[in-house]
């Protein structure tokens, strides 16, 4: 039997343990142990999940735990996972462990750094396993302020501006989510425990009045959308990612943006399917704009971190496109894209961080010829880039392909147009990725001092291998992930098809 609360407790306890440490060695040891334990428990969770499903357990959510929290509001501590949540938990644990490894040499206020990083991961785990909307919102907000401090204290460049922008925009997102959730709460019918309900599974059984859905869906969707760079609220992404320290960038792009995508699916689409159908065209338009705009904006960037940040806007657009298309395959693709992009972008930021640490620049025109000097880092960098442009065999191809397949199942002309435009963006992606890769690792060595650089240290190698393993596991044998996600996507699509059939 698997206790999901462990996933919240572990990072919190590790974070507190880090605070009690005295020396740098202790801090590192505790942080690494904690992150490894998280990683192990997420693997155990995956195995336990498979075992339950193999034993024929058909429940929508497994390993549920529920306690009353605020009885008067009918707020409960309620956790549980389906395959989709298991996949997100896995992603989180991979990125956190890699993040801790990459920031091994943080020596400016290391205690606070690891404390905040681990605290942040508690927020992400809690969010993914929550089955109560209040809890979900609690963890969503929990994962914002540590980012402000991480960027503000350990960041680079215009860090104070970026940190403030990120914090305010994300909190604005959660303010919208709050309004939507409050409206949803008062639109719910009575359950055995109270006049209204925050419980995700209960609300899914109810028929929320159409008027309430139409009113509050935009709040919830836009709110979560801000987290996952919904156009035109994506402006925090480039600034935030480029100013953040490496581990925070990995976390931001790898997990934080997925909170938004997951919320859009789990809360907005699942609980308000009629409104999701009604608003789907708008979502598709905004997602397509994000994909194309993100891709072209990336072409103009000369800073590696900005390149990856803008390409994240474009890639997260695929997630929203998949959600907007509202077919079973597209939802599957959206979740796969979240996982794939999470791993890929974390790897990309890790590689950029390693290069930056050595060369002290991220500008394309100053870098060059690094493949000869730092072969390991450069290879990782190239693989991350190829994954980003969707090379078969790596996870990006699988995810994007699934989204396109799902999108094509909608037969309207406008759906087709959006799909074709989104597909076309891959060409642009290829342009900027190949250009970045070529300028950075190929060609002549631009600065003679580069020849003295060291290749990756053990911690960096481990982080890269960890993320690479994930990318390859999805890229080469994608069906395990697909089978993991599919039951969850089926349940969401059942809601949506009910909504469509009523129309």
């Amino acid at each position, binding site marked *: 039997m698997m206790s999901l609360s462990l996933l919240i407790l572990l990072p919190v306890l590790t974070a507190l343990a880090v605070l009690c440490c005295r020396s740098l060695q202790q801090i590192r040891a505790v942080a690494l142990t904690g992150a490894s334990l998280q990683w192990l428990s997420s693997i155990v969770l995956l195995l336990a999940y498979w075992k339950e499903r193999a034993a024929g357990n058909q429940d929508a959510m497994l390993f549920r735990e529920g306690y009353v929290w*605020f009885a008067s509001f009918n707020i409960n501590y309620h956790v549980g996972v389906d395959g989709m949540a298991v996949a997100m938990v896995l992603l989180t644990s991979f990125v956190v462990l890699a993040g801790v490894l990459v920031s091994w040499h943080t020596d400016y206020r290391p205690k606070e750094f690891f404390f905040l990083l681990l605290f942040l991961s508690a927020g992400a785990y809690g969010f993914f396993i929550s089955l109560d909307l209040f809890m979900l919102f609690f963890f969503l907000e929990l994962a914002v302020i540590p980012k402000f401090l991480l960027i503000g204290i350990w960041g680079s460049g215009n860090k*104070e501006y970026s940190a403030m922008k990120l914090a305010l925009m994300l909190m604005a997102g959660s303010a919208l989510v709050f309004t939507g959730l409050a409206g949803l709460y008062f639109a719910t019918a009575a359950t055995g425990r109270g006049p209204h309900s925050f419980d995700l599974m209960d609300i899914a059984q109810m028929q929320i009045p159409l008027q309430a859905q139409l009113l509050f869906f935009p709040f919830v969707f836009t709110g979560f959308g801000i987290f996952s760079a919904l156009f035109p609220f994506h402006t925090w992404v480039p600034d935030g990612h480029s100013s953040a320290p490496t581990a925070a960038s990995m976390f931001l792009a790898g997990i934080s943006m997925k909170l938004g995508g997951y919320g859009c699916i789990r809360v907005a689409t699942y609980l308000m399917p009629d409104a999701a159908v009604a608003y789907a065209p708008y979502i598709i338009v905004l997602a397509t704009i994000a994909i194309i705009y993100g891709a072209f904006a990336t072409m103009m960037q000369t800073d590696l971190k900005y390149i990856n940040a803008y390409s994240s806007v474009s890639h997260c657009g695929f997630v929203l496109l998949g959600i907007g298309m509202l077919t079973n395959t597209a939802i599957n693709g959206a979740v796969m894209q979240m996982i794939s992009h999470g791993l890929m972008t974390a790897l990309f930021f890790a590689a950029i961080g390693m290069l930056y640490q050595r060369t002290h620049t991220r500008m394309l025109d100053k870098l060059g010829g690094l493949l000869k000097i730092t072969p390991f880092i450069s290879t990782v960098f190239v693989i991350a880039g190829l994954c980003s442009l969707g090379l078969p065999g790596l996870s990006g191809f699988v995810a994007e392909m699934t989204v396109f397949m799902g999108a094509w199942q909608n037969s309207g002309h406008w759906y087709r147009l959006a799909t074709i435009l989104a597909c076309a963006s891959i060409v642009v992606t290829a342009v900027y990725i190949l250009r970045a890769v070529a300028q950075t690792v190929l060609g002549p060595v631009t600065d003679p001092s580069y020849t003295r650089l060291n290749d990756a240290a053990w911690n960096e190698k481990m982080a890269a291998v960890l993320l690479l393993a994930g990318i390859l596991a999805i890229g080469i044998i994608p069906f395990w992930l697909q089978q993991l996600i599919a039951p969850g996507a089926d349940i969401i699509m059942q809601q949506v098809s009910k909504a469509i059939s009523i129309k």
Partner: protein
Amino acid sequence: MNDFFLLAKQELALVLIIFLLLIIKVGSKEWENPRVLGLINLLLLLNFATGFIYQQEGILFNEMFHTSKLIIIEKNILNAGTLIVSWLAFDWLKQQQHVIEFYVLLLTTLLGMQLMISAGNLLMFYLSLEMASIPLAALANFDLQKRQSAEAAMKFIISSAFSSGLLLFGISFIYGTTGTLVFTELPQQLQSTPLQLFALVLVMAGFAFKISVVPFHLWTADVYQGSPVAVTAYLSVVSKGAAVFAFINVLYTVLQPLAASWYPVICVLSVATMCIGNLFALKQTNIKRLLAFSSITQAGFILVGISGSSQTGMATVLYFVLVYLFSNLGIFTVVALVSAHTGKEEVADYKGFYGTNPVLSWVMALSIFSLAGIPPAAGFFGKFFLLMAGAGKGNYVLVVIAALNMIVSLYYYLLVVKTVFIDKHAQAPVDAIKVKSYPALALIICSAGVLTLGLASQVYEYIFSISQGM
């Protein structure tokens, strides 16, 4: 007779302490400050403890005074606030000559506030309100050497007299049209006649002054800035809390028949208070002024909860005041320590503060996050519930405006966090402050309160169980 001693126990305890202090003062023996302070803090602790015995409802003096579990817990909150203020001001009070006078004035206002909450008659209500206000002006003037302090006192007494005048004017109209001043008889007599609505406006204006609601907030910033930190803390937490309690009690019971009239007024006042409080807070460079405007904004949020006019509304407002007390006093403890040790009160003085005072910085950050409504601090739960109470009425415009105002307030709260944690001081940051005895206790209690009040649901559930709606 037994009833008298038991029902009015909290007031009687305060009266006893006040007399004891006066006796010590007139006595021939000169007491040293630390000894007096030790004694007073012990007495205040005992006074706080009296609130936990004999929790019964009752009426005294021909309905002049009434009490219930809800009122007892409201008084407990005020007592706790006063106790923490007394702790956090320890370092400052040690340097003062007139410690006993300070406490006599402080406890007199507290007594006034408690009687105000317990009042069952408008006359009694008005008298206790005055008793709570006038000594506060003397307290605001307690920094005898500072001209600003005198200015603060002057501003406070004038605006307070003006608002009392409005209130009294309103009360006289109510008496004129209904022929009674008793709370329990008034609801049957109020029928929304034009004169009664005029009276309602006047009464609400009077209250609005006390809780510094826009457009009656103009005194707040200057008085907060000029007063000694301890008095500012007391004004912003205990005094405001008492006014909020009295306001919600009066609105939900006496003025209940006029609910259709006061609901839109509350909504408009709430929006104006949140927006204007926030806009002015953005520009402040003095930490006390910043906290003054932040407390104005918080009053706007409280009004959102009050607009809920339900059991939830009552419970969330009480809970929020409790949470606000711990959060605000946490940050005021730090400000008081820095002010008492260095005399610095500008936000910019806190640059590099984390480098020298990490523990104080974390307490400050925790309190600020709680004020801004960031989990896991209790302020998150407080704000969430307040807005839920407001949303219960179906007025989502108000909720959206409140939610967006939280973002604006987050900006200036984060600026303080940024100053403390990120900025580097050009010359020398504030030296490391040794925190001893009572202020340390205040820091621990406030932080513990901020961390536990939200995550542990029992406090809110208890308050909810004894609250009542309209």
